[in-house]
């Protein structure tokens, strides 16, 4: 079963604890930005970057009384079920794991930036100011999920079975989800989260837009969103379709062996015909010379 995350945007208060937790866990440098510089005023920084994997966006709207109203949305890797970035990467540096996260191997990447062009959500970013640049994006805390960082002892004293179990769940939760205090972010099995989303929407049909963003987009994603504001108004791309992106290119890639073989036969055929013609022309010439 693969892990997923459900984002209930109706609960988000834009405290940006997730944004900060993400920076801390991934040890990302601070960015030099200008407050009110970004569209939406309070949004900071303006966009995802190699130093910001998670971003709470401030969307300015007008409410029924014509007054300014904020809606909050989140930018970050969707961890697609069939990711375009992974299909694009020539060296297989990006990979969808069975557990859910789309992970990046920085020992393989040579910086062609095809993944950035291919991602339908424009998530991967590049270290433009580094002489040894890498691609950077949210990892869904794959290291935490794997249990790489599990705490087994405190002050050199091994933990009891009971504490271990308690810690295990906590340690394996992505940093942003752990930091979220309003329950906007919920981590779990994809199927269970989908059911949960449907329950919430059924319980309050007037509140929610009848759409789970990420359930079917580009073939489904591990990060899914529900909201009270239409997704296009929140800046989510809504014309991507349900087809997985790699499926747009796989027919061309699968055709290669057949094309190579076919071309070989075709070219030999042409060569044969051209040769016969040349020979016929030559012998005709000889004959006409003899007569």
């Amino acid at each position, binding site marked *: 079963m693969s892990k997923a995350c459900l984002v209930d945007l109706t609960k988000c208060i834009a405290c940006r604890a997730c944004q900060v937790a993400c920076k801390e866990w991934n040890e990302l440098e601070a960015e030099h930005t200008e407050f009110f510089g970004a569209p939406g005023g309070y949004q900071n920084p303006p966009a995802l970057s190699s130093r910001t994997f998670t971003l709470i966006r401030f969307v300015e709207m007008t409410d029924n009384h014509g007054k300014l109203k904020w809606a909050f949305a989140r930018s970050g890797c969707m961890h697609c079920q069939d990711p375009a970035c992974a299909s694009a990467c020539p060296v297989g540096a990006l990979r969808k794991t069975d557990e859910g996260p789309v992970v990046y191997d920085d020992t393989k990447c*040579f910086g062609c930036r095809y993944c950035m062009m291919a991602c339908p959500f424009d998530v991967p970013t590049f270290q433009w100011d580094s002489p040894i640049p890498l691609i950077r994006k949210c990892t869904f805390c794959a290291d935490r999920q794997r249990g790489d960082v599990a705490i087994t002892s405190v002050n050199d004293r091994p933990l009891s079975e009971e504490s271990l179990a308690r810690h295990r769940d906590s340690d394996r939760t992505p940093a942003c989800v752990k930091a979220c205090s309003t329950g906007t972010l919920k981590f779990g099995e994809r199927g269970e989260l989908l059911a949960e989303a449907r329950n919430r929407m059924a319980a309050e049909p007037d509140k929610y837009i009848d759409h789970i963003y990420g359930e079917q987009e580009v073939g489904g994603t591990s990060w899914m969103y529900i909201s009270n504001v239409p997704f296009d108004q929140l800046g989510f791309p809504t014309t991507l379709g349900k087809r997985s992106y790699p499926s747009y290119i796989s027919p061309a890639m699968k055709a290669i*062996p057949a094309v190579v*073989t076919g071309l070989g036969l075709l*070219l*030999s055929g*042409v060569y044969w015909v*051209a040769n016969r013609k040349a020979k016929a022309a030559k012998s005709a010439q000889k004959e006409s010379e003899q007569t």
Partner: protein
Amino acid sequence: MRHEPLRARFVTPGSVVLVLLMVAGVVVAIVRYARGLGAVTNLSDTYPWGLWIAFDDLCGVALAAGAFTMAALVYIFGGEKYHAFVRPAVLTGFLGYVFVAIALLVDLGQPWRIWHPIVMWHKDSAMFQVSWCVMLYMAVVALQFAPAVFERLGWRQLHELWRALVPAFSVVALSFFTFIMSHSAIWTVVVFGVFAVLALAVPRLFASRAGVPIMLIMAGVILSTMHQSSLGSLFLLMPNKLHHLWWTPILPINFFLSAVAAGFAIVIFEATLSAKSFGRSPESELLAGLGRALCYALWICLVVRLADVMIRGQLAAAFSSGKGLIFLIDVVVGLMVPALILSSARARESMTSLFTAATLAVVGLVFNRLSVALLGMTMPGKVGYFPSIGEFIITIAIVSALVLLFTLSAKIFPVFTREEQEAFGLPGAASQAAGNR
């Protein structure tokens, strides 16, 4: 028809300027390696690909297509009378790939890892296909050009060895390519079998023409076809960004067809240009023949492009948006006008109109590639892109290096036949004039 080196001076005012431009490029490159891509380019997270990918790489590869179209025309389609155009086209093709390789070394984030695709395989990726096609095709083109080097250095034995090994190399290269792109044992065996049989049968059954390594030619044509089309495949993953006037499931086919046209166009362009600059009239009958080939190629491109756009119901967009205008320029100026010019036999025989049409076709190809990679794209967000001075300097520097390499190679190695030097109006034929100076 013996090939001979050009007899001309090495150092000219022109070459000095070229070297200066290259030095400027080296300076920018040093900054780029020391401080990162952001220091010299206008690339951003919104526009990860810019001038270097769109022009240096996409156009560089397409303009190198002369090598395989001429090889196919002369050695496979029986157009032997065009023989004289092959070696210069192969040299241009090889240098075109050097251009692409240098540009990649600047553009890649970590160019010292450029070899990674050799050992890290990912068959689903069009970029992986691109890298292998570049490597294998460069090897093929180098092998095609090798006889010129052997002749020059008088290495007869190596020449013999080359002749004996080249067919086997071709078969292995194609089978290996199939294997890494499919990971299918069955397909690999099929391809190996088919080409092994062809390698054995072709010279015997089909009455060989001495000295022509037909398997190598075939491997070159096939790898080129795969390569030209794979550059189109790259953009299949971007149906959300590339306007559907260009984005189509047959994008790889469009890239291949336009590359064939560009191949003929660049050969005509080069031949007439060098003839003009030396004030001689080239073999106009041969050039007219190439003009006809270009004419067919352009019409095929045009019909396929338009039919595809119509079938997918995108034609209206051509007349209703900014992207539509770009599309119309792409199709009308780059394909329709030159095709119409060349449809008249009289125009094909006139040097001026032939040259005009070929130039339009070359410019059209460049515009088409720029459209697919940049102009036809709609990127998210408000950040725009226009190439920085640094990006231009690097591009100009690499082009200068190529021009210099081309003339140097033609002076050192026997690229042009004597007839051809006459046909091209190059100074080898006019050696007496040069000698008198």
